[in-house]
């Protein structure tokens, strides 16, 4: 991908935006007690309590690291793929827990940016958009890397013939 081309700008904007979202999400969780996030995870009743506590300890730091790596633009394929996998897990859990007409019984908190934000059509749309962005970024990152490899192969093929013969002898 040509630097400063429209596609390059789009990809840069996408990864910086996604990275910023991850950093902010990590911040909202790290500034409060990890137990609040643990309670939010436990409310989904998908994993045992001890696992919810472990995830509450680890996930914010993982989000922070991913966010920084995305913003920096390093290891982009790995970072984008990890972000996509993480968002896919979150989105699936949210869709599973979403109960639009629920009044009786507690509405489960999204837990995306701390507690207190119930899962709603708005949060699903937001997280769905982030997932789509992350997926697009992942595809672009792999595609860009693939395009670089044939170019590198072409460079090697067009190297001077003498040097090759000298190597053989």
């Amino acid at each position, binding site marked *: 991908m040509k630097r400063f081309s429209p596609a390059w700008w789009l990809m840069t904007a996408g990864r910086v935006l996604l990275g910023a979202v991850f950093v902010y999400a990590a911040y909202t969780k790290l500034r*409060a*007690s990890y*137990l*609040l996030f*643990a*309670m*939010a995870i*436990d*409310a989904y*009743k998908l994993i045992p*309590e001890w696992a*919810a*506590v472990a995830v509450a300890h680890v996930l914010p730091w993982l989000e922070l690291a991913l966010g920084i790596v995305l913003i920096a633009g390093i290891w982009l394929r790995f970072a984008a793929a990890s972000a996509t996998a993480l968002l896919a897990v979150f989105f699936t859990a949210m869709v599973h827990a979403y109960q639009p007409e*629920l*009044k*009786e*019984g*507690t*509405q*489960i*908190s999204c837990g995306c940016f701390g*507690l*207190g934000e*119930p899962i709603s059509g708005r949060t699903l749309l937001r997280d769905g958009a982030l997932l789509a962005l992350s997926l697009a970024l992942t595809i672009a990152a792999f595609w860009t890397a693939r395009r670089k490899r044939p170019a590198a192969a072409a460079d090697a093929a067009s190297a001077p013939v003498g040097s090759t013969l000298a190597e053989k002898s």
Partner: protein
Amino acid sequence: MRQLHKQLWIILALGLAACAPLCWAAVNRQSAAHAKTAAAAEEAAPDKTLGSRNAPIVMEVFSDYSCPMCKAFYIGAIRRMMDSYIPEGKVYLIHRDFPLKGVLGHEHSRDAARYANAAACIGKFREVDAALYSRQEVWTHDGSVDATVAAVLSPAEMKHVRALVASGKMDAYIDNDSALGSSKGVRSTPTIYVTAHGQTNSLPGNLSYSLLRRYLDEQLQN
């Protein structure tokens, strides 16, 4: 002249003596009025709280007496806190009524809230609160809120509660609680807010007590 002075003093003394009962009656009337005002003030502010107001942690719970999850939270968390955090002055619990409208199985929610508020006016909130949750499956089905409450109150107390419910005054308190909840974004029950160190956080209603206990202990340690 001396005799005139003497007569004047006698008249004055008689006059004061005559005024004394009138003053006494006036004072009594004022006390009665104060007592009435105090009683009215007491009735005007049902105390639906548990624990010390000076507790470092405040837990505000918006609930509907017909809501099974509210009952589960009451049994799983509140009742346990009544044995520990609340009497130890660590948690101040505030109950707020948020009877859900138009939900199947919640037809008697408002009635239950009226009785709970009336009981709170006479200092019997804890007993009626417990009774309503423990027999939830019965009165939500047949509407026997009055009988449920009567089972835990004396005849005199029940008479007072019925009078308060019949007066229609309890609806204002319920509406106040509901309006407060709506302003805070409450849309379902139970909705729980915990305030500690000047920060308020919302907790999920289906939380596990062990996690809640860990959180409360952490806040108390800080």
